[in-house]
């Protein structure tokens, strides 16, 4: 493993992905800020822009574009760092993937701006958008597949050269993340290619609504693990190096990733708990599998705090909690991801509530859910991605993270947490009172129940405004790190495994077994209900209600 900077070509590739990701973050954040003000009743949108148009842009740009581009950039950088310079094939695949995804994003964004696709990022049928919206999304997904193929080939080449050795942990994790992504996106690819595109072009009149929703959520849940796993890569492998410690256990880290590949996919029905046409038995079966996916998160929590405590004690900490003081609180590369980890505790607990069968009835489609994923993806994942950017961007541009930018990053993290505490806290609370998500400003004819929600919606706007300030701060830092910070060498931190940890069993790297098991679980969880849906669920014509 080399410690110098990545090969310039590989660096350029990773930077291009990260740049598109941050542009999407900026545009998506503007939409988010406006939404928060509209919903609180303090702003009316000018020039015929619709609230739901903004909401569509916000969801697509942040949940799909920012995440996917940043992740693929980070994964390629990790592979280049740990398995050596990218092979010509991997590089070519990565660039083809990049351009397909970028063109797809551009087409989709233009369709949203033209108000031809105000269907939100979940695009539930039978709301019918312009076919180009679906084609744009297809290009994003296909592009990511091509990128995945590049990573798999890079990994295979390394394996061939190093027979009998476990692959570098970071590359193993990158491969696991892309395997999960490809299995998951098959669902959305099937519904978009075989249902949405022919239907939106008018080749067929009707669409099987329940089938399209089921295929969407087959993809929609593992999508959140596709966001989370790169954050876990940072926590497991990068954070130990930053805090001057060692990775607690290489094999347990790999086992956690394998469990995510197995259990994050056959669980989509927990997004459809309140839906007709699926029997309670199949819903419950998938809910049990959903709970299985909590196990690797519990393992992760243990491993991380074990790393923190062991490294603190090795530095001479005493007492039950003395090691807490030994953590580098003033280093933003640690502080931002650490706050992300902390937020994942309430975020994960909220997720368990959402997935708990009939308990879902209390919170489904309320602002509680919006509050939930603003903790998980918009704080845990986002703060970790920012935490990665603080060293990855200067590492790639040959610059350094200066003490001033480091301090600004700490302030940014604090702003983010305060803004999110207000916004997500208000969303959770008012959601329990029944306020719906994805709804423009309304008092429902001054109904007393709806009027009770108003003060919370104002708090949401205050939180949203603070978050927007934090967005401007992170963009300022990133642009500085990219073009203005002093030249130098910023480390790409990669942790080493603790000497007490056990040797990694090669079984963990046997992807044939894990992919096979994953397919078996998917077949068990989905075959019967999907056949039932294809045979019995009626089809519906399309509508354009915007």
């Amino acid at each position: 493993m080399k410690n110098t900077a990545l090969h310039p070509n590989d660096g350029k590739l990773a930077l291009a992905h990260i740049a598109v990701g941050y542009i999407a973050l900026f545009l998506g954040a503007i939409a988010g800020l406006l939404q928060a003000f509209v919903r609180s009743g303090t702003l009316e949108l000018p020039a015929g822009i619709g609230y739901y148009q903004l909401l569509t842009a916000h969801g697509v740009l942040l949940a799909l574009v920012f995440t996917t581009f940043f992740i693929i950039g980070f994964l390629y950088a990790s592979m280049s760092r740990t398995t050596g310079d990218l092979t010509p094939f991997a590089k070519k695949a990565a660039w083809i993937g990049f351009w397909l995804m970028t063109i797809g994003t551009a087409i989709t964004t233009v369709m949203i701006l033209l108000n031809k696709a105000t269907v939100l990022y979940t695009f539930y049928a039978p709301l019918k958008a312009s076919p180009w919206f679906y084609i744009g999304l297809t290009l994003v997904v296909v592009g990511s597949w091509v990128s995945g193929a590049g990573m798999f080939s890079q990994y295979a080449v390394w394996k061939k050269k190093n027979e009998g050795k476990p692959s570098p942990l970071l590359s193993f994790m990158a491969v696991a993340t892309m395997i999960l992504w490809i299995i998951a996106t098959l669902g959305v690819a099937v519904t978009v290619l075989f249902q949405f595109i022919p239907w939106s072009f008018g080749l067929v009149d009707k669409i099987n609504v329940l089938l399209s929703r089921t295929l969407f959520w087959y993809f929609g849940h593992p999508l959140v693990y596709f966001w989370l796993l790169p954050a876990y890569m940072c926590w497991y492998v990068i954070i130990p190096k930053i805090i001057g410690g060692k990775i607690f256990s290489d094999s347990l880290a790999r086992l956690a990733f394998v469990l995510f590949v197995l259990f994050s996919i056959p669980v989509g029905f927990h997004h459809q708990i309140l839906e007709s046409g699926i029997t309670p038995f199949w819903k419950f079966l998938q809910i049990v599998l959903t709970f299985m996916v909590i196990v690797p998160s519990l393992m992760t929590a243990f491993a991380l705090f074990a790393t923190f405590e062991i490294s603190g004690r090795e530095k001479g900490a005493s007492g039950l909690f003395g090691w807490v003081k030994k953590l580098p609180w003033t280093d933003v590369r640690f502080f931002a991801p650490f706050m992300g980890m902390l937020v994942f505790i309430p975020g994960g607990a909220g997720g368990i509530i959402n997935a708990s069968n009939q308990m879902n009835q209390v919170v489904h489609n309320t602002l509680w859910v919006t509050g939930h994923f603003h903790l998980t993806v918009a704080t845990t994942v986002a703060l970790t991605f920012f935490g990665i950017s603080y060293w990855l961007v200067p590492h790639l541009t040959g610059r350094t993270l200066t003490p001033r930018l480091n301090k600004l990053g700490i302030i940014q993290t604090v702003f983010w947490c305060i803004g999110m505490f207000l916004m997500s806290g208000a969303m959770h609370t008012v959601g329990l009172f029944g306020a719906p998500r994805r709804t423009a400003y309304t008092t429902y004819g001054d109904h007393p129940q709806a009027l009770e929600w108003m003060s919370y919606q104002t708090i949401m706007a205050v939180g949203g405004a603070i978050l927007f300030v934090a967005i401007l701060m992170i963009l300022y830092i990133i642009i500085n790190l990219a073009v203005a910070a002093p030249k130098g060498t910023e480390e790409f931190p990669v942790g080493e495994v603790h000497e007490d940890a056990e040797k990694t069993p090669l079984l963990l790297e046997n992807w044939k077994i894990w992919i096979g098991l994953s397919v078996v679980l998917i077949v068990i969880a989905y075959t019967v209900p999907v056949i039932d849906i294809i045979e019995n669920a009626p089809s519906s014509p399309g509508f354009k209600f915007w």
Partner: protein
Amino acid sequence: MHLHRLEKVWLLIGIGTLVMFLTIVGISAFAQGHHPPSDLTTLDPQKVDTTEPFNQPGLKKIGDNEYELVIVSQAFAFMPNDIKIPEGAKVHIIVTSKDVVHGLEIVGTNVNMMVTPGHVNSLTHTFHKPGSYLIICNEYCGTGHQMMSTKIEVTKA
């Protein structure tokens, strides 16, 4: 693979909690009948107006303080409008959609279900407290989504 002793304890407590939680939720659903709304009835979404019982949306008394409430949802309204029922009434709600996907939520209660075109959804709720309850659509259905609502007036018995 070797697990640290403390990690074993931690995972045992964690997994034990999850199993207990699932057992409670499962017993409540399968033994006590608290299933989430999962109606399997289907209909032609383009013939809602001529399909029973949706050809006559409204409130029907079917027993002693027991009612059947048939609701048709369409962008951007629920039929019927403004419903009145006495306190303590047990109401079987049956709903479908004439166009896109809607949601039916009665604010302040556990009544919450997805309404997909071509499908019927249903659940039963007893209104113990008098007052004005807001029924809203909680799934995005178009530009007028935020206007889609009606009321249930639960009157003192």
